[in-house]
C-alpha cells in the first residue's frame, strides 16, 4: 500500500493546472496545452509502471500465462 503515488499524481495535476492558467493568462495558449500534455504524460508513465506490476501479479496468482 504505497499511497504516496496518489498524492504525487494529484500534485502533478494541480501543478499543471496552475501552469495552464498562468500560461493562458500570459497569452501563450499553445504552451499551456503543451504543459498540460507533459503533466499528463509524466503521470501516465508513473501509473503504467504500477499497472504492469499489477498485471504480472494477476498473471502469477491466477495462472494466466
Amino acid at each position, binding site marked *: 500500500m504505497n499511497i504516496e503515488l*496518489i498524492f504525487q499524481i*494529484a500534485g502533478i*495535476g*494541480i501543478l499543471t*493546472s496552475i501552469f495552464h492558467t498562468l500560461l493562458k493568462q500570459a497569452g501563450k495558449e499553445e504552451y499551456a496545452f503543451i504543459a498540460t500534455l507533459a503533466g*499528463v504524460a509524466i503521470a501516465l508513465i508513473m501509473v503504467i509502471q504500477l499497472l504492469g506490476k*499489477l498485471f504480472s501479479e494477476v498473471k502469477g496468482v*491466477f495462472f494466466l500465462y
Partner: protein
Amino acid sequence: MEILQVVGVGLIGTVLAVFVKERNKEVAVLISLTTGIIIFIFTLSKVGSIINVLNELASKANINIVYLTTVLKIMGIAYIAEFGSQICRDAGEGSTATKVEFAAKLLVMVLALPIIVAILESVLSLLP
C-alpha cells in the same frame, strides 16, 4: 483491521480525484486508476492464500488440476476485465468499456469450451 486501510485509501483517492477533476480531467482519471490498482494489489495477496487452500482441497478430492486452473483463469480474466471496463466507463468511454467486456466474455468462452465438450461427451457416453 485491513479494511480500514482500504477504506482510507479509497476515500483519499476519491477526494483527490474530485478535487482535481474540475481543473484537469485526465489526471483525475489517472488518480482513480492508481487508487484502484493499489487496492487491487492489496487484495491480490489475500486471494493468493485462498487459491492455495482451494488447490489443496482439489488435490485431496482427486479433482483434475486442469479444471481448477481453468476456473482460476476465468476468475482472473473477469477480475481484470471488470477493472479495465470500470475505468473506461468512469472516464466517460462507455463504448470502449462495452468492447472490453465483450472481449473478456469471448476469452472466457474459449477457455470454457473444452470443459463443455467434456461434459457433452460424458453425457453422450451415458446414453444408450
